[in-house]
């Protein structure tokens, strides 16, 4: 028997807070939980970790993790390995992003035209994208090894030491490998975008006397601009986070640490050497860098 009168909330107040269709919250709840649990919580926790001399301990153990302020960030900025990592991200992006845009745009245009075995080629370019990284890396290791197919073809022109253990060639090979691996996905994006370019524009261009090449540069390329923005931003973000390649293709950031990437360093310091505070600082510096590059990309590419 409840004596107190329940504090009734009026329907109108409820509606103002929950909207006309409160059940909508139920539908988005699973994804919100996923987003908070898998992305938001670890993200904010890593910000917290980066200010401490953090280390992993058994659950429930009471340990002292001293507050170190910005020391982790200062250490990262002075660390020659981190500098090599940042340099490698730049080498990687300078090769990977333009190559990805150019090659996937040209291939998508070709695959959009009526060419023989079109379905076969579309599938063939998509296969590397859905192949397990470890398997694809295994093949590339063979191709570019000292006695591999590539060196057999190059013969006396092959670099010495061989590609993946050569301080100059290791990063370009990684960039080319990632371009090849991701090409299928970006071709798919461009193929979809090509369907949105009105046929009339091509007709108008041909009436004006444009050949195939001219109409590619004056109709196709501008028409694909929104897709290009997406491709550039996606490939910069996934590219700046490259890890599998230095981990597997060059055997742990080799040769002589010349192919380390920031994410690889996060793994080495955070997981292998149990300095997650330092690793978190590296991660956040990388995230800031990627944000800045993405902002510049939007600013440059997203006009009109």
């Amino acid at each position, binding site marked *: 028997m409840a004596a107190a009168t329940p504090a009734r909330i009026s329907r109108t107040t409820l509606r103002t807070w929950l909207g006309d269709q409160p059940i909508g919250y139920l539908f988005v709840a699973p994804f919100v939980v996923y987003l908070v649990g898998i992305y938001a919580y670890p993200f904010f926790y890593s910000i917290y970790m980066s200010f401490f001399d953090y280390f992993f301990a058994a659950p429930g153990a009471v340990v002292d993790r001293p507050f170190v302020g910005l020391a982790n960030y200062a250490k990262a900025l002075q660390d020659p390995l981190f500098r090599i990592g940042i340099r490698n991200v730049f080498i990687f992006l300078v090769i990977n992003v333009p190559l990805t845009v150019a090659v996937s745009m040209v291939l998508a245009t070709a695959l959009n035209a009526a060419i023989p075995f079109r379905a076969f080629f579309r599938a063939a370019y998509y296969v590397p994208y859905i192949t397990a990284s470890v398997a694809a890396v295994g093949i590339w290791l063979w191709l570019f090894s*000292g*006695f591999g197919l590539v060196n057999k073809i190059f013969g006396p022109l092959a670099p010495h*030491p061989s590609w993946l*253990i050569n*301080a100059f060639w290791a990063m370009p090979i990684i960039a080319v490998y990632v371009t090849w691996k991701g090409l299928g996905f970006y071709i798919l994006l461009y193929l979809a975008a090509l369907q949105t370019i009105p046929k009339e524009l091509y007709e108008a261009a041909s009436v004006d006397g444009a050949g195939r090449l001219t109409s590619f540069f004056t109709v196709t390329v501008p028409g694909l601009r929104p897709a290009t923005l997406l491709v550039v931003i996606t490939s910069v973000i996934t590219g700046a986070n490259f890890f599998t390649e230095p981990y597997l293709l060059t055997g742990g950031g*080799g*040769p*002589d*640490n010349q192919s380390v990437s920031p994410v690889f360093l996060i793994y*080495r310091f955070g997981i*292998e*050497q*149990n*300095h997650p505070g330092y690793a978190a600082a590296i991660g956040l510096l990388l995230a800031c860098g990627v944000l800045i590059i993405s902002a510049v990309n939007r600013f440059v590419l997203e006009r009109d």
Partner: protein
Amino acid sequence: MGTTIRKRRLIGVDLFAGAGGMSLGFEHAGFDVAAAIGYDPIHCATHEFNFPVCASTGRAGAERGVGGRVNCGVVPVPTQDGMDLGSIATFSDEKSSAMYSSCKNRGTAWDFLKFSTSKESDSKLLDLTGQMPMRADLPGNYASYFSAHPDYKLFADQAGRTVEVPNVPNSVEMWQDFRAAYSKSVIFGNQSVDAAFKAAADQIKTVVSQ
């Protein structure tokens, strides 16, 4: 197995080859690795897969010489000052088993551990694999085996003098420092060996003192 070596480069022989880390280093440094001798047949197979142009062989082959082309034997690890052979120690790379305190059937597990490391089981291990059991006085305990396999006697003697890889906090970080110095100086020649290992030693001392 072996094919002809084409260029005129320095020739190296990799002893204690394992899967071929040292062979790889030799190759990078400009050697042709002509032969490699390992102990464990599985490692030797890996070596042969990794370095098809190099003649690699395991224990049995070492007794005969690599494919009959190299006359070789086994000795303890060389030391800086030429120590007496009988007092040289080596890394054991021991394999251990342990029982967790949270184990549910401790009595049975203990019986099993005792059985699987008993003198008889160790004898079987030695018979089947040629691996040296963790046990004092191997030559005395398994005299019949070593009289049948005299080449293994040296391994048995050596098994009496082993040291373990030191296990200290942050050892992963120290090994990484050591590897980095080794890659930089010995493999890639980007720094003198002395300077690289001096720096690595300083770095490791800082890590130890933390």
